[in-house]
C-alpha cells in the first residue's frame, strides 16, 4: 500500500489542469469582452474636428474678405492689416476653446490680393459716373460677387434683345466676347429675362417671374436669376484669364433708360491701376477692397496632425 501522502494524485493533477483551463478561458472571455467594447467605440482618432475647424475658419475668412471694406476709404495697407488682425483674433479665440480638448489649432493669413469694389448702392440707371451710356466697368481683370438688382419696368421689352440693342454686360478677353442681355420677355407677362450671346453668336435665354416687388437679382458669378439657376449663365465659370467688363446701351439711342437698379462687383485689379467709369465720388463708386486671401490652418492633437492652405474669394464662380 502506498503512503497516505501519495494518494489521489490523479485527482490532484486533473484538478490542477482543469483549473488552468478555466483561468485561460476567463482570460479569453475577457479579451472577447474587451474586443466588443473596442468595436463599439467611436472609430478613428477624431479627424472630424479638424475638418470642422477648417470649415469654421473658411466661413470666417469668407465673411471677413466680403465685408473688409465696409465703411469706406481705407488704404490697402489698412485693409491688409485689418484682415491679418481679424484672422489673428479669431485664431486666438478659437484656440482657447480647442485647448480644452487638448488640441492645438492655429490659423494664419499667408497672402492677400488687392482688388476694387465697384458699386451703385441706390437705384439709378447704369450709366457711368460721367453719364456715358457705353462704358468700361473694369479692364483686364477677374470678377467675383457680381450681382445686379434691377427693376422689371426699366428693362427693354423685347424677344430679340441682340437685334434691338437691349442693355447688356459684356465680358471681353481680347479674342472672345460674351454678352449678357437684360430685358423683359416680349409676351404679356413681361418676365425678367437674361439672354446670353456666346462668341459664336448663339443666344440662350432664361426668364423668371420677379415676384411682387417687381425686382430681380441677377447673380452673374453664381449664374442665377432671382435665386433660380440659369444654365445659359454658366459660361461665367468657364471664362479663363482676364477680361474686360463693360456696360453697353444703358440708355437706348433716344436717351431713355434701359435699366435701373443697383449693382456691385469686386475685381482683382487694384484701384490705382483700374480703368473704370466709376470713381471715388458719386454713383457708381470704386473703392479699395481685398479680392482674395490665402490662409493656412494647422490642427494638432496627440493623434492627428493636419495642415492645409486654403483660398477664399467669396462669390467667385468656382469658389
Amino acid at each position: 500500500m502506498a503512503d497516505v501522502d501519495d494518494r489521489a494524485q490523479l485527482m490532484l493533477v486533473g484538478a490542477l489542469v482543469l483549473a488552468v483551463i478555466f483561468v485561460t478561458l476567463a482570460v479569453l472571455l475577457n479579451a472577447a469582452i474587451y474586443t466588443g467594447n473596442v468595436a463599439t467605440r467611436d472609430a478613428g482618432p477624431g479627424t472630424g474636428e479638424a475638418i470642422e475647424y477648417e470649415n469654421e475658419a473658411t466661413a470666417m475668412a469668407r465673411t471677413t474678405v466680403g465685408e473688409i471694406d465696409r465703411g469706406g476709404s481705407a488704404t490697402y495697407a489698412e485693409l491688409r492689416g485689418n484682415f491679418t488682425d481679424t484672422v489673428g483674433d479669431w485664431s486666438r479665440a478659437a484656440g482657447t476653446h480647442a485647448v480644452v480638448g487638448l488640441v492645438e489649432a492655429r490659423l494664419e493669413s499667408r497672402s492677400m490680393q488687392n482688388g476694387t469694389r465697384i458699386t451703385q448702392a441706390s437705384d439709378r440707371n447704369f450709366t457711368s459716373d460721367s453719364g456715358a451710356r457705353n462704358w468700361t466697368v473694369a479692364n483686364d481683370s477677374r470678377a467675383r460677387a457680381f450681382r445686379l438688382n434691377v427693376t422689371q419696368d426699366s428693362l427693354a421689352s423685347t424677344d430679340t434683345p441682340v437685334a434691338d440693342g437691349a442693355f447688356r454686360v459684356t465680358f471681353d478677353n481680347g479674342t472672345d466676347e460674351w454678352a449678357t442681355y437684360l430685358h423683359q420677355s416680349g409676351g404679356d407677362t413681361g418676365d425678367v429675362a437674361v439672354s446670353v450671346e456666346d462668341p459664336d453668336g448663339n443666344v440662350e435665354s432664361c426668364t423668371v417671374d420677379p415676384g411682387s416687388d417687381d425686382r430681380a437679382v441677377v447673380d452673374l458669378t453664381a449664374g442665377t436669376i432671382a435665386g433660380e439657376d440659369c444654365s445659359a449663365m454658366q459660361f461665367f465659370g468657364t471664362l479663363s484669364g482676364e477680361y474686360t467688363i463693360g456696360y453697353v446701351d444703358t440708355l437706348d439711342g433716344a436717351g431713355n433708360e434701359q435699366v435701373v437698379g443697383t449693382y456691385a462687383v469686386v475685381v482683382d485689379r487694384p484701384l490705382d491701376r483700374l480703368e473704370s467709369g466709376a470713381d471715388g465720388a458719386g454713383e457708381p463708386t470704386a473703392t479699395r477692397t481685398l479680392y482674395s486671401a490665402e490662409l493656412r490652418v494647422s490642427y494638432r492633437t496627440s493623434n492627428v496632425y493636419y495642415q492645409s492652405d486654403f483660398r477664399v474669394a467669396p462669390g467667385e464662380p468656382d469658389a
Partner: protein
Amino acid sequence: MRDDRPAPEPDASIAADRRGVSTALGYTLTLSITAVLIAGLLTAGGTLVENQQRAVITDELTVTGQQLAGGFEDVDRLAGTMENGSVRVNVWLPSDVGGGGGYSLEIVNHPTPDDQPARATIVASAENVDVSRNVSFRTEHPVANRTVTGAPVEIVFADGDGDGESELVVSEGGGAP
C-alpha cells in the same frame, strides 16, 4: 456467523485463492473510472479553450482591421480637404490578439479605373493560430501596399512609391505627430 470460504489447501495455486480480492478490484475500478473521467474532461476542456481562442482571435482581427480601415478613411477625408499641406494620423491598434499572440496586417491596393474610388483590402493574420480576416474599404485616394506587424501605426498622405502622386501610406510606430 456466516461461513467464510474455506482456506485452500496449502499446496493449491494462488489463482484459486479468492480471499481479499474485492478491495483490490474496487481500488482498480475507482482509479480507472476516475482516469477516464478526468481524461475526458481535459480533452473537452482543451478543445473548448482552443475553439474559444480561435473565435476570440477572429473577432479581434476583424475589429483591428476595421479600426485600421477607419483610420485610412479618416486620413482620406482629411486628404480630400487638404491643399498644399500635410496629414498625419496615429491609429492605436493592440499589439497582440487572443491573449498574447502577435499578428500582422497586410494592406493590398486593388487598382480601379480612374473615375472610380480606390479600393483596398486589409488582411489581418494571427501568428500563432491559423486565422486571418479580410476587411475591404474604398477611399478617394489610393492606398500604398504595405505589411506591418500589429501595433499602433501611423498613416500619412504622401508619395510612397515615387510616382509623383500621393497615397495613403501606413507605417509602424505611431509616435507623437
